[in-house]
């Protein structure tokens, strides 16, 4: 206990005095202006030339529903292949074999360096370069039959995704402490087993947030496959408005579906992130 009589004089004890609330004039004004602007925007759309009943009518149309299923199917499949490819390429880049490193770097350079829509058109028109494809002597087929819109879109999207994902995975692997490799080696693990059991699970924590981003972006990027006639949701919407001229209404339908799918993914990503951050300090007690 401090002897109060020995403390310097002139400093009154303010203990227990009430603290007045601050008036946040700036905040109130900013909020007010924004609400007014948003109101005007909503009014403009409500009065604009949009037939909202058409939006409702086509929202659950057969072609649109089939389109969103195709969108999801393509996104999930291309993302899965992209991640597999990304892991392989990341491991190649981190190997000590100079040929593997160069090939992996070249792959990333090529597919990140060209527009995706160009890659899709290239795959779709590959028959112009190779009329027949296959393994000589074993099996061959006509490229036009094999390179359907589905195959071309899957190939283009996953190869492109693999290039981006490999960089994300590589960053994740590098972020794992060097001591973890030592510890895994010290209990006699081979390099591949250490990667699978020790390094990759820890890299996941770093990799998941950007990968979630990539997946969301992938769902929307599948719309590019409409240029090569893959029947995803935007393609379906286009086909309908070519027939009935309700361009904006059908674009709104497609837009709403993208928003719904992306919103549904956010909690899923949170669950995954929680799973892979187990054992780290920031846990709810």
């Amino acid at each position, binding site marked *: 206990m401090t002897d109060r009589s020995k403390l310097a004089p002139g400093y009154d004890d303010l203990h227990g005095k009430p603290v007045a609330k601050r008036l946040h004039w700036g905040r109130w004004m900013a909020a007010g202006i924004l609400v007014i602007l948003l109101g005007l925007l909503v009014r403009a759309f409500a009065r604009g030339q949009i037939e909202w009943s058409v939006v409702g009518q086509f929202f659950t149309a057969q072609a649109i529903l089939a389109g969103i299923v195709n969108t999801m199917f393509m996104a999930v499949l291309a993302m899965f292949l992209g991640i597999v490819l990304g892991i392989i390429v990341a491991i190649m880049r981190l190997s000590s074999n100079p040929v593997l490193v160069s090939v992996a770097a070249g792959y990333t350079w090529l597919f990140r360096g060209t527009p995706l829509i160009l890659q899709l058109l290239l795959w779709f028109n590959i028959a112009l370069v190779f009329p027949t494809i296959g393994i000589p002597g074993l099996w061959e087929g006509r490229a036009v039959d094999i390179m359907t819109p589905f195959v071309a879109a899957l190939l283009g999207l996953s190869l492109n995704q693999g290039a981006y994902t490999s960089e994300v995975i590589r960053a994740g692997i590098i972020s794992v*402490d060097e*001591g*973890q490799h*030592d*510890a*895994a*080696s*010290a*209990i*006699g*693990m*081979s*390099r591949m*087993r250490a990667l699978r*059991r*020790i390094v990759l*699970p*820890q890299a996941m924590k770093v990799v998941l947030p950007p990968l979630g981003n990539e997946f969301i972006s992938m769902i929307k990027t599948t719309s590019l496959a409409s240029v090569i006639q893959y029947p995803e949701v935007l393609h379906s919407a286009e086909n309908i408005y070519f027939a009935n001229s309700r361009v904006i209404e059908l674009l709104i339908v497609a837009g709403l579906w993208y928003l719904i799918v992306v919103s549904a993914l956010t909690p899923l990503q949170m669950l995954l992130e929680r799973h*892979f951050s*187990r*054992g*780290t*300090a920031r846990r709810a007690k």
Partner: protein
Amino acid sequence: MTIRPMVAIRNVDKTFGSYQALDGVSLDVMPGEVTCLIGASGSGKTTLLRSVNQLHPIDAGAIWLDGELLGKRQVGQHLHLLSDREIARQRRATGMVFQRFNLFPHMTAVQNIMEGPIQVQGRPAREVRAEAMDLLARVGLADKAGNYPSELSGGQQQRVAIARALAMKPKLMLFDEPTSALDPELVGEVLAVMQELARSGMTMMVVTHELGFAREVADTVVYMDAGRIVECGAPTQVLADPREERTRNFISKVLK
């Protein structure tokens, strides 16, 4: 008949770039003995320890573990490098404890201990779990089996790390400054576990700055400087009555 050393190190050189980390090091570690390696940082003691566990290749010389040449095979007049798989197999005979624990953060204490026996040795989980629980009890952490490393103190983490190394039933235990990253009040609990391990007859090589531990537990103390062994002998001699000027200087600095 002479006893075969557990570790025989002969004329080992190791450079990192232009830096000579080990310079013609030779040493025997006898079975059941505790050898403490002391010396200033950069003297090569950690490099020597990591060489014994083949965490990096050596440039010249040879190391035998329990009579088996490490990292190479003699074929006629030539030496052939072993494959990564064979090196991984040889490493299973040694357990290693690191300065910064290096527990696997995504696994609980008991999972950390079970990882090697299950994944590397392919033993049944039920049997391994029972052994892991025994090991946790041995290091005084039976109640922490389900805790993640982040929920344990440094001393507790290091004791789990010792249990993890012991789970592989090694012939030799390597300790790389096991108490240097610990708060002073946590050093004792780790040293106590190591002392118990030494008493049970484990062969140990310990890089340490704890001269008190070396004096009490070591059978041999090795003083290293600039990648060479300067002095090597019983703790009563090396620590209490060093022959070399450099050893005397080092010990007086550490004790100050």
